[in-house]
């Protein structure tokens, strides 16, 4: 290996060899299917249906996301941090900054282009698609998506978590462009003209980002928060000793992760609510904006969960000796993090709940919402409408908290393969949800689904109970939780299920809805298994 270009190629190939093997196997399988269709009587889908979705759309999208993660070094850095996620070990290589930037971008672009061309040529495209499958622009869109992701993630930011916001806004814009192009049936020439100039632009931004990171030119505005902390300290608020070890650990968790969700919400919320001023004449848009606002804390919580589920402070998932040697049980360490998530979710909603009515009043859209609320109250009755609203709000707050903590049981294991594998599985699941729902509604499976719903929920509940029993036994055997704590946890969970069941009974007091179905829903809705597995995961990581 005598050239930097070959060394870069070798490093990517070696590090991601299993991924490339899987991608090659998938494209080969696609080629075999196409070959069989040409030479035998194998029938391929003629419409945009579930078969095509699972054969091409789902694997293709997953492959694109994987390539983006691989060529941005996304699995190596801290996305929520301020520093560039470009690996610092490469800054000392005797090559120019242009080479440091260009080779990963070029290799990534080549892989994305090959993925698209292979899919375009080999995949069995249905004949009756709404538009003719273009040759160039979808691939070019993939290149643009990759290039901007590289530029955004390699840049350093003045504040923590800013990268997440910029990534969400930037990549959503590119995705919106693709949806618009399909809806408006844009020509290939127009799309190429719109997309192609972005590639050199993204390269220049990425090169500038790497150059700044390489010489350590990183603007740090987090000192603002530190000054506030120092001012509080001077006023004596930070000098009081902690009441106990649990309180000290909670303080550490809050300082490390707790503030990030309310901060993100505070950044995104005003932008969303400003849209209300533009929607005074479009009632439907008002409700769309309100739905987006309501979903903002849970969605942002799932981003902050990436950091929250880590065992230590660094980029590594392994628990640091500093944390591992705290004289505190693994259950108490997890408990402090769960409490931090409760306060973080509450702080985020404390921002949202008053901001929405204020924005509605100031933007003169309050009457639209009030009219709809009165209409609903007229149909179901005022108490039930208020109860339903309160249930939705409580569900959203609980979901925000759940999003932050539900993957703790994976992250705290510290096993990188398990964590990344579960992430990829979740990505596949998210991509597959759309086609699955479409299939359920358009095929005969819908009837089967409803008939089997009771059984499905029953099996889920039985499996959860079995798992919960096993986890409780392990917690008891490994002395991670006392008998009293285990009993208190079980009693709390039962009380929560009973409360949810009572609310559901009151809200859906109709003979159409069987009571045992409501009980099953209440049992599934209240989290238990994954949360109780978190101390086991941390203990597995802490005592290897």
């Amino acid at each position: 290996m005598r050239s930097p270009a070959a060394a870069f190629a070798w490093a990517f190939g070696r590090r991601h060899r299993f991924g490339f093997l899987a991608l090659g196997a998938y494209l080969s399988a696609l080629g075999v299917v196409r070959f069989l269709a040409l030479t035998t009587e194998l029938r391929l889908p003629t419409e945009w249906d579930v078969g095509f979705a699972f054969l091409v759309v789902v694997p293709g999208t997953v492959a694109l996301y994987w390539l983006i993660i691989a060529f941005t070094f996304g699995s190596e850095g801290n996305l929520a941090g301020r520093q560039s996620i470009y690996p610092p070990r490469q800054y000392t290589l005797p090559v120019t900054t242009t080479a440091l930037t260009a080779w990963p971008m070029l290799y990534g672009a080549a892989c994305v282009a090959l993925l698209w061309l292979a899919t375009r040529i080999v995949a069995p495209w249905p004949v009756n698609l709404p538009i003719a499958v273009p040759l160039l622009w979808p691939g070019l869109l993939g290149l643009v998506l990759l290039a901007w992701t590289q530029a955004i993630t390699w840049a350093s930011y003045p504040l923590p978590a800013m990268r997440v916001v910029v990534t969400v806004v930037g990549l959503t814009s590119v995705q919106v462009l693709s949806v618009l192009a399909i809806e408006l049936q844009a020509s290939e020439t127009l799309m190429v003209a719109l997309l192609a100039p972005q590639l050199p632009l993204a390269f220049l931004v990425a090169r500038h980002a790497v150059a700044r990171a390489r010489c350590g030119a990183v603007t740090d505005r987090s000192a603002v928060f530190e000054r506030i902390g120092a001012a509080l300290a001077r006023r004596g608020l930070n000098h009081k000793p902690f009441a106990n070890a649990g309180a000290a650990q909670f303080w550490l968790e809050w300082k490390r992760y707790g503030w990030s969700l309310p901060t993100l919400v505070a950044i995104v919320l005003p932008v969303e609510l400003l849209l209300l001023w533009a929607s005074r004449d479009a009632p439907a848009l008002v409700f769309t904006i309100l739905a987006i606002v309501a979903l903002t804390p849970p969605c942002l919580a799932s981003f902050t969960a990436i950091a929250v589920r880590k065992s230590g402070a660094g980029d590594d998932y392994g628990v640091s000796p500093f944390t591992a040697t705290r004289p505190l049980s693994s259950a108490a360490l997890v408990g402090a993090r769960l409490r931090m998530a409760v306060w973080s979710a509450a702080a985020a909603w404390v921002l949202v709940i008053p901001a929405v009515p204020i924005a509605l009043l100031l933007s003169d859209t309050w009457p639209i919402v009030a009219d709809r609320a009165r209409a609903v109250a007229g149909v179901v009755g005022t108490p039930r409408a208020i109860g339903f609203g309160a249930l939705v709000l409580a569900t959203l707050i609980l979901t925000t908290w759940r999003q932050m903590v539900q993957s703790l049981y994976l992250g705290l294991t510290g096993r990188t393969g398990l964590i990344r594998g579960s992430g990829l599985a979740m990505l596949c699941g998210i991509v597959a949800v759309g086609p699955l729902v479409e299939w359920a509604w358009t095929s005969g499976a819908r009837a089967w689904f409803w008939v089997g719903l009771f059984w499905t929920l029953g099996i889920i509940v039985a499996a959860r109970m079995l798992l919960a029993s096993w986890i409780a036994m392990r917690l008891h055997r490994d002395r991670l939780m006392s008998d009293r704590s285990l009993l208190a946890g079980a009693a709390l969970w039962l009380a929560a299920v009973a409360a949810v069941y009572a609310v559901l009974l009151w809200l859906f007091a109709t003979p159409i809805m069987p009571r045992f179905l409501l009980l099953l829903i209440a049992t599934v809705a209240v989290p238990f298994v994954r949360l109780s597995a978190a101390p086991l995961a941390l203990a597995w990581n802490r005592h290897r």
Partner: protein
Amino acid sequence: MADPVIQLSSLSRRFGQKTALDDVTLSLPRGVVYGLVGANGAGKTTIIRHILGLLRAASGTVRVFGMDPVAEPVAVLSRVGYLSEENDLPAWMSVGELIRYTRAFYPTWDDGYAEELRRAFGLDPSARIRDLSRGQKARAGLIVALAHRPELLVLDEPSSGLDPIVRRDILGAVLRTIAHEGRTVFFSSHLLDEVEEVADHVIIISEGRILLSAPLAEVRERHRVDGESLSLDAVFHALVGTPASPLPLG
């Protein structure tokens, strides 16, 4: 003899194909300074991680104060002070916050002693850990390892990469700790002169096996040439089988 502070029985550990510890048995009474000596990769940190309960004994048993540190981490760790070679203190904390946070975990925390150490080490309480030099970070780590007056002080390569002044501070802290009757110090090092200076009892490890575990005076007595005691450096190289003189420069 009093109950041993640390007791390892037939402890073995493998990481993949590599044997990190091979049938290690040690029984260490309290009130002694133990120096664990070995080359890089000999198994020093693996022993320390077992003592702290960060590694579960795959084969054999580990007891600290008569307890399994994995099964009873709170009871064991609340009596142990630990300074890590990695020095992984939270970078965002100030020195004052680090002291305030750590204090909450130890009922035996001594505020006066912590303040005395902080002043002696010249650390500003408002300074962020990330802004400290490597030596200052080691001193900050030492304050939180010592201020609760632990019964067992565990130091993993405490002087690694530090200048002589910081090394002197650390060795001074070790001496102060043993000044209190009944306290035990267990420290690993590859700096043989440092071990020779402070340790009462030397343990030499190579490729996961304990080659020697004896009081330093006994080691000196046993290894003599022409009536002169050999240095620990010479004893170490004789046992491990490596040349005592440095390799020639290429």
